């Protein structure tokens, strides 16, 4: 288990989390390479289906990172994303899979260090939980 390296997919809004990831890079902040980023025009674009597909295809953890609440460029995108994350958490619980494998985060584009912190937080959390029970052999 010591050698377990989680596969984590992060759906990031280009106005905040994605820009914060860029900033983290410019600031030379290290964050775990386990996190694979998918850029979105707004977290409102993320669908329940995208989150489930990531899990289905073997991701050990999935998170959505959107703007701070009240600061979405499209008004309510991040609130909608949060509801979708909640739905997926419920679905996982119904299937006997830890709902903590899916999470919603909010940050601004100026929060490079917070981006790195979230990536670390999620990686630590998933390491603690172990590989996803959906993962078949090596994905």
């Amino acid at each position: 288990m010591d050698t377990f390296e989680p596969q984590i997919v992060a759906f990031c809004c280009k106005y905040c989390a994605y820009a914060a990831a860029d900033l983290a890079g410019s600031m030379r902040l290290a964050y775990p390479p386990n996190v694979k980023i998918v850029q979105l025009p707004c977290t409102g674009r993320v669908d329940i289906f995208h989150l489930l597909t990531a899990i289905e295809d073997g991701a050990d953890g999935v998170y959505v990172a959107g703007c701070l609440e009240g600061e979405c460029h499209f008004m309510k995108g991040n609130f909608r994303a949060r509801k979708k994350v909640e739905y997926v958490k419920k679905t996982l619980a119904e299937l006997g899979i830890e709902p903590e494998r899916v999470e919603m985060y909010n940050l601004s584009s100026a929060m490079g260090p917070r981006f790195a912190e979230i990536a670390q937080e999620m990686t630590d959390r998933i390491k603690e939980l172990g590989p996803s029970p959906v993962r078949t052999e090596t994905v």
Partner: protein
Amino acid sequence: MIIGDRKSLAEILDMIKDCRNILITGCKGCVTVCNVGGLKEVQVLASSLKIARKKEGRPITIEENLLERQCDPEYIAEVSDIIHNYDAVVSMACGVGPQFLSEAYPKQKFFPAINTKFFGGATAHGIWEERCAGCGSCVIHQYDGLCPISRCSKSLMNGPCGGSANGLCEISRDVVCIWDMIVKKKMEQGRLDDLLAVAPAKDWSTSRDGGPRKSIREELTQ
């Protein structure tokens, strides 16, 4: 439209427990509009079931499909080439869909993924409410457009009953007393006297008392 809720994953997983290869078919009609059995819901159900079965170590193959409507034979016929390629078919239409499919393809097994609930509409995004009981002889003109058959918990034609308090029905704080609304509307319109007339007992002969109903339009039959 017809409103439904999806069955629990546990119930659907139990239906398909012996299957290794299924088709999930949605419907572009009512169930798409009430977000329970359209394209997205088909994708979400397929993915959820695949996750569950991967977790059990018994992966399942799922094909996704969407029919224009599952309550018309011509659209049911569209899947004739593929319908027998699966161990079973899960329909995400209302209760009509899996029955039309079963009648058209007697050799295949069909499972309903939806619990069909009522005729209604969206009162807010994500919230649907009952508005019609399909009783077969509409009386809402007597009640200024508000239906006491579907919306009064006791389907009272003469109300309200003694359980009406502060606009709410005695059965639950979440249920509006439609008779309170009917009386208020009559008062606003200065037509409260309408309610002095006693409405006769409802004629239920147009409802389910004669068994399953049929509607025949001679000008359309061929």
